[in-house]
């Protein structure tokens, strides 16, 4: 009976959304979107002054925002404050997980299976590759898809491989803590640097360079590397917390 009510409720809500979207003249149909009507136009053309209708191209120099990847330009430059909040969410939830699951005396969780030879060797080999990929993705975040968050997670999953390969492995948590704290602090301080040098918080204070070059986009690669380090160390900490238990 309760399930039936829930079914009716969700079906009703779904139908309500579908019908009211279908009859809504202001809501664009799938694919029928004009980005020039939206703020995104400014992001794509790197032209938020709105004075002249400019465009930029691959290889332009000194654009308003430097990354070739437009999504990165939004995430790490135009709406960088959101990203600071996002980093904080991950930070506070990893703190909370450590608070909920961690205690001082911990040992590795005893799993049913033990890694065999292939797994041990294979993981060690893969560890390097995944770590390199993670670092590459992080550093090239302003040019190619990816960036600090997936890059950091890849770094953390290389740690996860080490955990799986070795029954007794524990990453050095203290080092991760330092990294996490330093990266977070540096992010906030970069924001302050923008405030003192340029007048607004988190403003880019370095030259934006040539769109498409590795060394371009001002503070964005720096911010993404910091995010990558921070996310990597946080998620490694989370994985460690999930794979350990209180020693009896």
């Amino acid at each position: 009976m309760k399930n039936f009510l829930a079914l009716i409720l969700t079906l009703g809500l779904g139908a309500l959304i579908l019908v009211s979207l279908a009859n809504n003249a202001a809501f664009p149909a799938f694919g029928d979107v004009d980005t020039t009507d939206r703020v995104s136009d400014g992001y794509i053309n790197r032209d938020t002054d709105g004075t002249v209708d400019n465009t930029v191209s691959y290889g332009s120099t000194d654009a308003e925002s430097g990354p070739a990847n437009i999504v990165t330009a939004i995430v790490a430059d135009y709406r960088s404050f959101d990203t600071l909040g996002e980093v904080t969410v991950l930070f506070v939830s990893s703190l909370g997980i450590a608070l909920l699951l961690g205690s001082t005396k911990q040992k590795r969780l005893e799993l049913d299976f033990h890694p065999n030879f292939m797994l041990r060797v294979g993981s060690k080999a893969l560890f390097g590759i995944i770590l390199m990929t993670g670092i590459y993705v992080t550093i090239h975040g302003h040019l190619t898809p990816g960036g600090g968050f997936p890059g950091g997670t890849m770094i953390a999953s290389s740690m996860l491989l080490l955990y799986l390969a070795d029954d007794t492995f524990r990453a050095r948590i203290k080092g991760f803590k330092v990294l996490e704290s330093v990266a977070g602090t540096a992010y906030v301080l970069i924001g302050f640097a923008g405030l003192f040098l340029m007048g607004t918080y988190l403003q880019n204070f370095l030259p934006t360079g040539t769109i498409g070059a590795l060394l371009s986009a001002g503070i964005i690669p720096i911010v993404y590397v910091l995010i990558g380090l921070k996310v990597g160390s946080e998620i490694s900490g989370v994985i460690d917390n999930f794979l350990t238990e209180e020693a009896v």
Partner: protein
Amino acid sequence: MELSNLEFINYVEIFVAVLMVVLAFLAINSKSLIKSVMFLSSLSMLSVISFVLMKAPDVAVTEAVIGSGLVTSLFVFTLLAVKKVGAHL
């Protein structure tokens, strides 16, 4: 008959969309928790395909690594930690 780019995407789209709904249904209704988690993981992988179809490579990479990889492993670790105690899952 040759398919244009758009038509091809349309067919893949329908396939992915239907499969996603089916997988979500299975994930919710499966009796075994570990199977549910696997269905969720596949659902997440399919959402990666849909992101690629809708030209969002950044999101696709992030969802593949974080949503499909990390979340699944956290679910599995939780279940493994508990399984040891000997409860029925």
